């Protein structure tokens, strides 16, 4: 009985840590979870993952290199990985627009991310701007890039754009590329 209560307490604490934004970046590192929940932290987080499944959420673990990792990797990888709570299912375009994104916003982000990824993670900002200007008015292009940077989807250093932490946390990059280059998809 007490073990069950202990696990419930740990699961609640895990939910607080994972849902509540502690730094500017959401999510919690594995070692932070271990520090707060003790050695059995992974069980508590797994229990939380199962608990939130019916409402369409799941825990996603992102490794140091930005790759998604499973629950069964070694302790060292989990320790330095970041745990997030994300949606389990894709959003519809209508839902996204009610959340403040326009179609152009999302399309612009697709162009930026796909260009960065296809050039192995680094691309000159000017190159991306040129591409965006093919479809969007010039005044929007600057605003878009700055917005994506502010939201953490991309980063910029000396005029070179790279993927930001948020892209790794939220986007399944492999699927994304295949949807971009693949045949026209059914609208969501």
């Amino acid at each position, binding site marked *: 009985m007490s073990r069950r209560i202990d696990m419930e307490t740990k699961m609640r604490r895990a939910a607080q840590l994972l849902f509540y934004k502690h*730094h500017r970046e959401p999510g919690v590192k594995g070692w932070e979870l271990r520090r707060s929940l003790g050695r059995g932290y992974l069980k508590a987080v797994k229990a939380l993952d199962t608990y939130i499944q019916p409402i369409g959420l799941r825990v996603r673990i992102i490794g140091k290199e930005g790759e998604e990792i499973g629950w069964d990797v070694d302790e060292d990888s989990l320790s330095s990985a970041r745990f997030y709570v994300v949606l*389990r299912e894709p959003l519809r375009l209508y839902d996204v627009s009610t959340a403040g994104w326009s179609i152009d916003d999302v399309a612009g982000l697709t162009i930026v991310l796909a260009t960065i990824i296809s050039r192995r993670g680094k691309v*000159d900002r000017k190159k991306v701007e040129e591409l965006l200007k*093919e479809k969007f008015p010039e005044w929007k292009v600057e605003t878009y890039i700055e917005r994506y940077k502010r939201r953490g989807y991309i980063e910029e250093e000396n005029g070179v754009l790279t993927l930001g932490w948020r892209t790794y946390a939220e986007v399944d990059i492999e699927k994304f*590329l295949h949807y*971009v280059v693949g045949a026209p*998809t059914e609208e969501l």
Partner: protein
Amino acid sequence: MRKRSEEELQRIIALCEEIEKKGADPFAVNVAHELEKLRKLLPLWRRFRELRLDAEALYRITRVIKRQEELVKFRSTNLYFDPEFMEFRLLSKSPRELADAYLRSWRPLISCQQVNLEMLRQGYMYWNSLRRISRDFTAGGKMEEMSLDKLKELRILGGDLEKRLNELLEELRDKSRGEWIEYWRFIDRGGFEERVRRAFYLSHLISMGYADMKIDPITEEIKIRYVSERLRGMGRSIPIVIGGEEDE
């Protein structure tokens, strides 16, 4: 002749740097040709400056070779699509199709940002625990120095300061080996008191230039590293709040 050869070295360095910085195609550098040039120029060098440039050029070429290797590996993964082909695909799709492609692979993060009663309670307790700032201090009076005895009484110093600093510095050197490591992981030993003590000693090491610290402006991650050559120059103060015992 020597001057022109030196310029040649600088050209190789600049070319390799450009490739690395902009993420351009590393195969644009004809590695064999550049290495052959370096080999031919080597007998000319006498001065330290020239030899240093030669070593740097060689180093830059090896970095390009590394990028070439990475590119070959990358091309063999599922993530590789030819950039020109990708550009063509992007331009051939409508904004709606592009948005659809993104949405299918996007699982947005869920997080809360709100104040709750518990946070307000903690804030109130913290406010109550703050000491009033002395009027002398706010009026521009002199700040009082804290004596070593007082520091010992507060258990900030527990014995020989120099010895403890040295121990921590050695530990940092062993763990960091010049690489950036996580601040919180490093100071997180034992209980709350020990954590504060380690943070205190570490702040001294950083102030004295034996260790370096950086904070990621987006993630707010704090990293530290051991530096083999003492850092000089003006630093800046960084306040770091160390969680109370309830965080244990």
